[in-house]
């Protein structure tokens, strides 16, 4: 592996087919060190397939390097540097919390027991409890505590909060921000709930029908995309600037532009940078035309 490059994930022509169905279609992307990347797409867009490939859980075509390794061939070594939470339901039901800590301390060279115990101490979970006796939210707390106690170079979260209520979802991301996230951490998150990760992200990857439809840092979005709310009278003038998506709201229509001529738009109304969530909807419904 090359230590010189700061890319933790490099995918070139990443492709995955299930029979006739193409789940990933020659996908290219890079995840750099210190970034928090959201892989965002609707259900069935290929997010989970991409994750499975990155984590060495499935076969794929194309070139894929994760922390300098080939995921499928070197999964066990990969997992020294990469931690992941695939779904809330994956901790074994019969496992006790203290057993989980013991096991990880036994098999994982980067696992720090003291840190795990410290994180668990912030919750109301008893060490002798079995996973099956915990609520969904508590299971997630355990899994997150175990995962954050690993000194990983890359953390992958695949739909980590699916099936959780609002309080538990907030708790999950609060814990992640307060106890884990700093500028040295690299995280790849997949989700279809854009709003809840929007504030964390430094980069976004929109994926739709097996293709990356947008790959950008969040800072760069402001220079690339603009939205403008116009009244009915100015709609035609605004439309001539070729918006890629229109959204009707009471009394106004919001138009979305990519690489717009801001000086000409400015006369039509108030320009703002669309939120990631709005952009997601705009890009995936508008981009499909």
């Amino acid at each position, binding site marked *: 592996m090359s230590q010189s490059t700061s890319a933790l994930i490099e995918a070139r022509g990443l492709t995955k087919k299930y029979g006739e169905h193409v789940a990933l279609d020659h996908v290219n992307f890079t995840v750099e060190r210190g970034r928090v990347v959201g892989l965002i797409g609707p259900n069935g867009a290929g997010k989970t397939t991409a994750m499975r490939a990155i984590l060495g859980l499935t076969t794929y075509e194309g070139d894929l390097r994760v922390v300098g390794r080939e995921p499928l061939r070197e999964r*066990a070594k990969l997992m020294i540097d990469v931690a992941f939470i695939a779904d809330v339901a994956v901790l074994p039901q019969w496992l006790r919390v203290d057993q989980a800590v013991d096991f990880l301390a036994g098999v994982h060279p980067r696992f720090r027991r003291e840190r795990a115990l410290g994180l668990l101490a912030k919750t109301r979970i008893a060490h002798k409890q079995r996973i099956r006796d915990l609520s969904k939210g508590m299971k997630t707390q355990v899994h997150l505590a175990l995962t954050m106690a690993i000194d990983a170079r890359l953390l992958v979260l695949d739909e980590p909060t699916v099936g959780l209520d609002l309080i538990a979802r907030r708790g999950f991301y609060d814990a992640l921000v307060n106890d884990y996230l700093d500028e040295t951490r690299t995280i790849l998150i997949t989700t279809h709930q854009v709003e809840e990760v929007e504030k964390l992200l430094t980069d976004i990857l929109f994926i739709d029908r097996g293709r990356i439809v947008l790959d950008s840092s969040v800072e760069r979005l402001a220079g690339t995309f603009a939205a403008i709310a116009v009244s009915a009278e100015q709609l035609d003038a605004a439309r001539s600037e070729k918006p890629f998506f229109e959204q009707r709201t009471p009394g106004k229509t919001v138009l979305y532009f990519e690489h717009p001529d801001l000086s000409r738009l400015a006369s039509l109304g108030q320009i703002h940078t669309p939120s990631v969530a709005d952009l997601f909807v705009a890009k995936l419904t508008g981009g499909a035309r």
Partner: protein
Amino acid sequence: MSTFFWLIRREFWENRAFWLVPSSISVLLILAALFGRVDLRIVTSAAQTTAFGGMLLGVFGVAFLLVMSLYSTWYLVDCLYAERRDGSILFWKSLPVTDTAAVLAKLATALIVIPLVYFIAADITTLLIAFILSLRAGALVEGSFWHADLWLQLQVTWLYLIITIAIWYLPVAAWLMLISAWAKRSVTLWALLVPLAAHWAARAFFGTNVIGNQIMDRLVGFAARAFHLRADGARWPELPGNVAGLFNPGGFLTSPATWIGVAVGIALILCTIRIRSRSAEI
């Protein structure tokens, strides 16, 4: 090596039946020895009491062995299917543990660890029962259980059984694991149907029973391979005479069937590892 230790230890956490089942048998047998009716008037001579002692220990041993075989079979069928069914395989695969280590740990659990647990349980049980019966029956059986020689032979028999069973049944265990790692449902059905279908196909299309015979031989041919069992002089040796004289390690280890089985077993285990490394879910 420490990873392997933790993988085995985790099997004990998951399957509390490992020790619950043998200890239940122990408790039942000990209760029977404590409160059952003991009538040993048929045993009169010293030679008879020793033979009786040896026989009793043998019967207990067989009881443990039977339950162990059933349990191990169930464990093998379930071990790689359960982790896919509940999705926990995604947790195990998030750790730096190779699929090879994971599969081999489960194989070793079934073929070595579970038998050792039953061995220890049977040992403790027979010791306690021998003690209880000696006290209850008094002079009648006094001394019949307490031959160092008898004990030693019991240990040697268990160890010989554990090793030879592990070798002979390796392909069966590997087959069950392969299906457990592969099947999307009905693991037991697949495990039984595929060999049956292979047998029927061989008979229907090639008019040969060779597959069926091989499978039957693998399932029931163990005792004939590992022990001197001859129909002609079916004479049970005097107990606590020479049990080890029944062992046939030379014949067992030089039989081609033994090593063909080992080769098939290794091939099936390699397939199992490959399947587990490529498919995380059902």
